[in-house]
């Protein structure tokens, strides 16, 4: 890890968020839209978890601690919660898309939408 610049994960997170917003706004296929949201979630999770990274830090388990800085476990806890929530959200979205496909026979957001105006 020594040779990777410290802000490298943040750039990756920003890139993921940028790409996913492009997908969410411009793609017409509902499954691709869901993939965009999954990528957005991964970008945010990567950002959160890289906040908690300290070079050479150790896990905050108090028995038999080696020397060196201890990592605060809050960002990891946040990321874990966020991952769990996003699994639920993605599963719900996919079930709804299956229902939409059964009712309308299309996954194109222009063709399958019924309500306008």
């Amino acid at each position: 890890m020594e040779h990777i610049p410290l802000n490298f994960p943040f750039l990756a997170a920003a890139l993921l968020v940028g790409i996913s917003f492009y997908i969410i706004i411009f793609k017409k296929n509902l499954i691709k839209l869901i993939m965009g949201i999954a990528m957005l979630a991964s970008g945010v999770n990567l950002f959160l978890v890289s906040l908690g990274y300290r070079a050479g830090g150790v896990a905050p388990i108090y028995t038999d601690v080696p020397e060196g800085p201890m990592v605060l476990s809050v960002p990891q806890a946040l990321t874990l919660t966020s991952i769990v929530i996003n699994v639920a959200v993605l599963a719900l979205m996919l079930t709804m898309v299956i229902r939409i496909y059964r009712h309308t026979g299309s996954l194109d957001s222009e063709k399958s939408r019924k309500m306008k105006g």
Partner: protein
Amino acid sequence: MDTLITHSSILIIAIPLLTAFLTPLIGMASKKARNTLLIVSLAFVAFLVFALARDISINGIHIYTLGAASPDLTAPKGFIVPVRIILEVDGMSILMGIIWSIVSLAAAIFSLSHIASETGQNRFYTLLLLMVTGGFGMMFTGDLFNLFVFLEIASISGAALIAFRTKFADTQEGGFKYIVVSAIASLMVLFAIGLLYAQYNLLNIGALAQAIQYTTPDKIALALLVIAFAMKLGAIPLHMWVPDSYAVAPAGISAMLVVSSQVSMYALFRVCFTLFGVTLNMYTVGWIVIILGMLSMFIGVTMAIPQTDIKRLMSYHAISQSGYMLLGVGVGLAVLGDPNALATYGREAMSGGIFHIINHAMYKGLLFLTAGALFYRVGHRDLNRMGGLGHKMKLTSIFFIIGALSIAGIPPFNGFASKFMIYESVYQFNPILSAIAMLVSLITLASFVKAFQSAFTGPPLPEYKEVKEAPKSMLIGMGILAAAIVFFSVFPGLIVHHIVDPATNALINQGAYVNGIMGGTP
């Protein structure tokens, strides 16, 4: 009783959560027992909310620290920042709590017969109670990350409830739009929370408010939070999901979704006033909120005019009405740094906006429930094909009139009381804004006269010969909200003095919120 009040804030969140997972078990044994459990638990929660409201009006901000030796011990010995999960309930939170408890109780009673013919009712009530949990959690939490978690709980259960009647294609579309918007908004909230946490290592709103510096990442976080909550509350450039989702949801859920959008508005105000508060460039942010409000108000009402679907029409009015709240509170936000202007009109504008939140939740909830009763008896939502229903559904039409007059701001109804406070105070800030607000109110009246005329008046139509008055539980649900409207109309001064003014003070007085958390650690 004292113990009950000390622990009431966590009980208000925990009781619906536990009942949510009890309902399917009990529902397998007996439907009647399940329905009783649902109503009793929601009624008990409403009782706790009112008891807590009384306690807050006497003793000030209510703090509850989970897992601490005593509930008000926010920071353990040796710590200078709060580390535990903390619930903080002030005047503004409890105002939202009162609204949410009344509307969810009315919606649950209404749904008893509204969804009686559907399959999977046990799951419906589980989701309904989870949504109640999420809403209360968002109002009462003193912690940004828990705000995100409860936002997600409310959104997921809300989306599942919108899409509950899977036999219709449009419900799936409405539910999908809602969950997409909610997922994007809540991920933006999470990103903003990450930005704030990266700088201050804090998640508690009160502690963050004390530490915040208003650096560039803070500004980005503020922008993300404002966009995300504006998206969730359906302010105009981000409103496209509102009519689709509200219109297709079961009617009780539409009424609850209105309040759930207002809870997002509460989160927006909490972020602007309490989290950023005096460090903020209030004039700019205030004007952004005002412009969002004006756009919502005007475009919402103009989009409502051509609608023929009764619930779609009401949904556009919901957008339009939320503009009034944003306008009122936005004016207060814009003059927050100027004590003179705040005292002359800013405080009154904010009280008007906040009072309008209560009134809107009641009358828009009632209108959605009457629309649900019509749908239940008639089988469609098309205004052009309805007519003469007032002969058969007398009580429903009376409830509709109460709601319609109130939303149009006709004196002496409660909609007039709050709108008048907004007109009067906003006029001193900027007369043009006030004039547009009055114009919008007139168009609202015209639109509801049209809706009433096409649904209820005229000769009885032969195809609706079989139509009867709505079932009893629906009438009780509508009656609760109608009674609340009449009560607010008769005693507006009482409500403003005891509920609305403390909420306004809670928003303006950032220091009290911070002291509630940090008070023990000088």
